[in-house]
């Protein structure tokens, strides 16, 4: 890691420039990406590059902590919360505050100029000559410092962590404000709700056996009840794309559901062979007349 010689120096320079470009590009992508999940993945790229930088700068312990704590724990936490909260949250392009982006960019440029001037005026010397505490003895040197000079901040950190854990539990805990409904009330509500039977399962008549594919009703239309609300909040599901497209044509629905010519979508997509081809029988969801329910339908539920 801290080898001497011109070859090692060239290697270090190459690593720096490659990772610098990658990390800045990923950071820019994080700011610009619409979907929060993409932001999280790009942030992981930045953090892993920073871990390599720490290793280059003689901080192997921090490099590992960066990978374990940031990339491992913090980003996983972000992704977990995204699964709960932000899955519908693609940022809208409409500005609620007029000129917000323009002003934010101007402020960013101002901060950049300010920091660059400050750094340009500061004297940034060369790296100190290599010593053992920046390579092999890094962990023990850090531990010595942490448990002697910085022992009080270290102890206070434990209080902070406990407070954070308790706070997270308190905030994430949900008090039940209404009494828990009994089974009788649930059954009555179900009858009164107009849909007493179980909701249709997704992908029943779809070619893709996936939860984001809505089931096809006997008349060929799609049942929105068969797809989870969380999934239909994402624009990627077939229900949403069918809603957003024009009603009479339904091009995206035709693309995914077998509602037009025999085998057309399947042959063009190159998926699994259609079991209904060449049998002569009507295809489920293709005919306009309602089909009698058979045993397969019951089994799919």
């Amino acid at each position, binding site marked *: 890691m801290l080898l001497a010689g011109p070859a090692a120096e060239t290697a270090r320079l190459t690593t720096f420039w490659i990772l610098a470009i990658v990390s800045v590009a990923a950071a820019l992508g994080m700011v610009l990406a619409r979907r929060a999940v993409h932001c999280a993945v790009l942030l992981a790229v930045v953090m892993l590059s920073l871990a390599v930088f720490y290793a280059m700068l003689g901080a192997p312990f921090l490099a590992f902590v960066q990978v374990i704590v940031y990339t491992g724990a913090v980003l996983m936490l972000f992704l977990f919360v995204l699964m709960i909260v932000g899955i519908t949250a693609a940022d809208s392009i409409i500005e609620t505050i007029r000129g917000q982006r323009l002003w934010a960019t101007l402020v960013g440029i101002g901060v950049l100029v300010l920091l660059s001037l400050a*750094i340009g005026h500061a004297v940034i010397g060369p790296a100190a000559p290599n010593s053992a505490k920046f390579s092999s003895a890094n962990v023990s040197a850090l531990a010595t410092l942490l448990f002697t000079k910085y022992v009080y901040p270290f102890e206070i950190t434990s209080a902070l962590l406990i407070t954070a854990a308790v706070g*997270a539990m308190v905030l994430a805990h949900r008090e039940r404000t209404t009494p828990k409904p009994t089974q009788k009330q649930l059954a009555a509500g179900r009858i009164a709700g107009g849909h007493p039977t179980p909701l249709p399962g997704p992908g029943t008549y779809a070619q893709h056996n996936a939860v984001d594919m809505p089931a096809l009703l006997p008349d060929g239309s799609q049942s929105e009840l068969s797809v989870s609300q969380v999934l239909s909040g994402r624009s990627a599901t077939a229900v949403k794309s069918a809603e957003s497209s024009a009603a009479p044509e339904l091009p995206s629905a035709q693309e995914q559901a077998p509602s037009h010519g025999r085998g057309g979508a399947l042959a063009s997509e190159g998926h699994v062979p259609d079991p209904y081809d060449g049998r002569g029988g009507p295809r489920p969801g293709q005919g306009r007349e309602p089909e009698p329910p058979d045993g397969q339908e019951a089994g799919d539920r």
Partner: protein
Amino acid sequence: MVSPAHFIALSVILFVIGAVGVLVRRNAIVVFMCVELMLNAANLAFVTFARMHNALNGQIIAFFVMVVAAAEVVVGLAILTSIFRARRSASVDDANLMKY
């Protein structure tokens, strides 16, 4: 040769990108991620200064920043989930009850 100035410049660029992200984005989770990016940029500067001055204090500070950032993320995301439960939205524009 990779001098500390390179790393400081990179840290400045990352910090500014994070700051602009905080100002521009409206999804609260993405705002959090941008804050994390700013903290990471500061950490890079700390580690660089430690290398420059041949003293490990900068690395210790960076370690503490990581600990505090982890605690901050835990509490912040818990707040986000409770806000989302109350108003079904993760946008920072919707949490405006304390606006005058």
